[in-house]
């Protein structure tokens, strides 16, 4: 598609040895900690969110191990409640929300647009440090005795419990602003820093997805900010708007919370959709099927997601009229989502499918997201949701979306852009094995949860009635396998940085601007500012030589 003549020329010539790129152009702690370069900030995010993922994963394994026996194995009830809260809070606020926009989005989005950097680099660095501040505060909350409210902070329990709720509330507030500033930056970048010729419908779908995500981040997150502040104020000086003893309404808290947290589900999942759109196209070497429909469906999901938050509250005592409206609107989210899944499958059809590790992760995503999305439809029906609400069925459903889909898409994107970012390639055999282990482990963990959930096992239980024991044990075994797979993945990815097995200039044969810049990119991304002259995903322009030219 996009032809950047000078760049293509530079590929044709023999690569110069020892070319300066963003990784080796300067050294030292402050060259990273004080950097304004979007790629370095992205890598710092990558390290941060990976640590959060491993911490959250560790909490998850503790939860699963504890539930091996009906009476619980490892902890007392209070400790168990703290551990599952930590798992939720770390995974949601420190990993899933910032993971893809913060790391891959930061690195790839300006490259895809042909920009030198994001529009507001200082704000970008501030976002990262706000994330760090949030992470420190969250850790501080653990040190101060932990918190046991669940990641949802439902009032009035969060107002009464004798734990570090104010500290974690502050952490969430700060993380919220980190997320807002990231989104704000990407919106401005997309509007103002597109390369000449990069029209809206020549933008790669990853950019569209991040753009839609950013709208949600900017418009929804402030309401979470004020909600956690109000919870903190309630605890500090008893406003009384959430506390029923003082005339407040706990259901109002749920409205405020889900006004953010439902769109937040799409803040999490839309970037994953974007990654999958890219990868399906590149690794099938075929233009994405229904490009415009996918682009618009991202925006549609973003808008509709503001109208459906009440479906988290079908049993909460909101009025039947509100339930009617929210359920009706909820089903409309299914349509753009279904369009995306069908379009990806149609893209694979008659493609040239490379079964390399990024594509394997992508295929795993397509299968798992199909389950995650379809079970969401089951939960959208009002009467069925009354039975399934707050059971392990819901737990399994959102793990299929959050963990199975988002984390797998994140892994897929990581494998895809790893050679682009670092100029090195990981052990492909190990990668395929790890992908298989993760896929099997994941399904083994959560399919039993679907079954016990539909039989009535409530969530957030430290102990349970004995009839659910076989399902919990199967789930625990699956979680161990899943944990092993992720550990293997971390191992070979880190090892590849030391082995330094050189990647190709254009490892997978991509034709978007991110693959037409030098690998790894120089400080301002392109040797010459690119100009776009062709349509997006036009594989007839692919220069096969670049797939064979090792990076300098």
């Amino acid at each position, binding site marked *: 598609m996009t032809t950047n003549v000078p760049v293509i020329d530079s590929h044709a010539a023999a690569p110069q040895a020892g070319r300066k790129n963003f990784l080796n152009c300067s050294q030292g702690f402050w060259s990273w900690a004080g950097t304004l370069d979007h790629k370095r900030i992205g890598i710092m995010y990558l390290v941060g969110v990976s640590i959060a993922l491993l911490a959250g994963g560790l909490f998850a394994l503790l939860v699963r191990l504890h539930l091996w026996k009906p009476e619980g194995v490892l902890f007392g009830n209070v400790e168990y409640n703290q551990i599952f809260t930590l798992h939720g809070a770390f995974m949601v606020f420190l990993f899933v929300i910032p993971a893809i926009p913060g790391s891959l989005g930061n690195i790839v989005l300006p490259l895809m647009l042909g920009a030198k950097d994001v529009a507001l680099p200082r704000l970008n660095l501030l976002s990262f440090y706000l994330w760090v501040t949030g992470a420190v505060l969250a850790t501080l909350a653990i040190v101060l005795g932990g918190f046991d409210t669940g990641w949802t902070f439902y009032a009035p329990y969060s107002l009464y419990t004798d734990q570090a709720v104010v500290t974690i509330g502050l952490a969430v507030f700060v993380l919220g602003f980190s997320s807002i500033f990231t989104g704000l930056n990407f919106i401005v970048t997309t509007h103002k820093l597109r390369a000449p010729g990069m029209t809206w419908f020549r933008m790669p779908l990853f950019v569209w997805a991040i753009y839609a995500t950013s709208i949600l981040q900017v418009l929804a997150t402030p309401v979470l900010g004020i909600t956690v502040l109000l919870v903190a104020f309630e605890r500090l000086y008893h406003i009384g708007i959430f506390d029923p003893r003082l005339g407040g309404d706990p259901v109002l808290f749920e409205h405020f919370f889900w006004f953010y947290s439902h769109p937040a589900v799409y803040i999490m999942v839309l970037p994953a959709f974007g990654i999958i759109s890219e990868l399906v196209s590149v690794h099938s070497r075929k233009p994405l099927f229904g490009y415009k429909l996918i682009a618009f469906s991202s925006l549609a999901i973003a808008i509709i997601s503001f109208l459906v938050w009440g479906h988290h509250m079908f049993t909460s005592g909101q009025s039947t009229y509100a339930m*009617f409206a929210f359920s009706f609107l909820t089903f409309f989210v299914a349509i753009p989502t279904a369009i995306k899944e069908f379009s990806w499958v149609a893209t694979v059809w008659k*493609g040239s499918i490379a079964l390399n590790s990024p594509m394997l992760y992508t295929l795993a995503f397509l299968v798992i997201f199909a389950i995650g999305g379809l079970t969401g439809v089951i939960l959208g029906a009002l009467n069925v949701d009354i*039975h399934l609400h707050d059971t392990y069925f819901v737990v399994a459903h959102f793990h299929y979306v959050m963990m199975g889909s988002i984390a797998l898409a994140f892994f897929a994107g990581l494998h895809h852009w790893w050679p682009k970012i670092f100029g090195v390639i990981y052990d492909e055999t190990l990668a395929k094995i790890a992908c298989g282990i993760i896929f099997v482990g994941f399904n083994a963990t959560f399919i039993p949860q679907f079954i016990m959930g539909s039989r*009535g096992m*409530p969530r957030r*239980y430290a102990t349970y009635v004995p009839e659910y024991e076989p399902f919990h044990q199967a789930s625990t075994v699956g979680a161990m396998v899943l944990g092993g797979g992720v550990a293997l993945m971390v191992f070979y990815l880190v090892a590849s940085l030391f082995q330094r097995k050189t990647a190709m200039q254009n490892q997978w044969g991509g034709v978007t601007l991110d693959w037409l810049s030098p690998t790894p990119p120089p400080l301002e991304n392109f040797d010459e500012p690119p100009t776009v002259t062709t349509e997006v995903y036009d594989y007839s322009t692919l220069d096969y030589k670049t797939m064979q030219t090792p990076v300098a």
Partner: protein
Amino acid sequence: MFHLPIQDPASATQTPAPPPVVDAYGQLTKRASTFGHVDDLFYFTYAVCIFFFVLIVAVLLFSVVKYRRRTWDQPAASNTTHNTPLEVVWTVIPLIIVMIMFAWGYMGARDMTIAPIEASRNTIKATAKQWNWTFSYPNDPAQSYNEVWVEVGRPVQFLLESTDVLHAFYLPSMRVKRDVIPGRYQTVWFEPTEVGEYHLFCAEYCGKDHSQMYAKVHVVSAAEYGARPWDKWDDSTPEAAAKSGASLYSQICASCHSVNGSAGVGPTWKGLFVKNADGSIVGRQREVIEGGVRKTITIDNDYIVESIRKPDAKKVAEEPYVRNAMTAFPDLDDRKINGLIEYMKSLADSK
């Protein structure tokens, strides 16, 4: 073993209800209420999901096998970028299907939300507090704890109230769930169709012992229901009352108050009363704070009744009890409180 609060004042231990039978399709537990539309819509949606899932996976598998890249520079077999009729079809057909699901689901939920008049006339009140359930029967002084009886084939409504935080009243076998919200009444109704014992879970996270906030639902025949099986309180003699009080203690008091003198969330019950040489049992003196004023009182029946029904009126002037708040039991009836007092007195030591 799995720990449950003890349900039956007559026996020291209680097991949860037996595992429910699985229904014919093997996914849900067997339904024991009239809400068949939940199962019907669940399996309809399930079938639709399986259809689409198989379709997606089949196309993916077929493509991966057939169109696998055999040489590294192999181009795609087709470069189609869109197909408008196909895109319209896969937009419209799912739309129609989900609208059917919506209408079906809403009608079902309406049925579950609005109780018929027979159910309203047969209303049991369920009071949720951290972490137990209290059930009050219409025009009946006796209450039951963590155990409730309903009549088979007769619609019943539960009026739900919470005295502290959010809870949820969840009966998987009946397919009903409703959050219990402090400061406000909620209702839920169903018509049990099968005699048996069923689980009642708290499904909204409510703190420490959320997972142990369990109650057993007995669906019994009309004859059995008429015998008021929930009224098992034996206070025919002071000893019997103390014994009943002891088992009630283990259900709703033991998590905070010890009887052996050890410190807990609340003060121990050991030594509230002392036995004089002549065998008479009298209350001790105790330092309390009432309305911010520190005073010394003698423990007596009135003090204990007040401490149970309005625990914050007089707070024990001692750390940490002066800070800790006790859940109030305003609905606990006089016979039950007498049983508890008899039990406290039975703990009295000789001077």
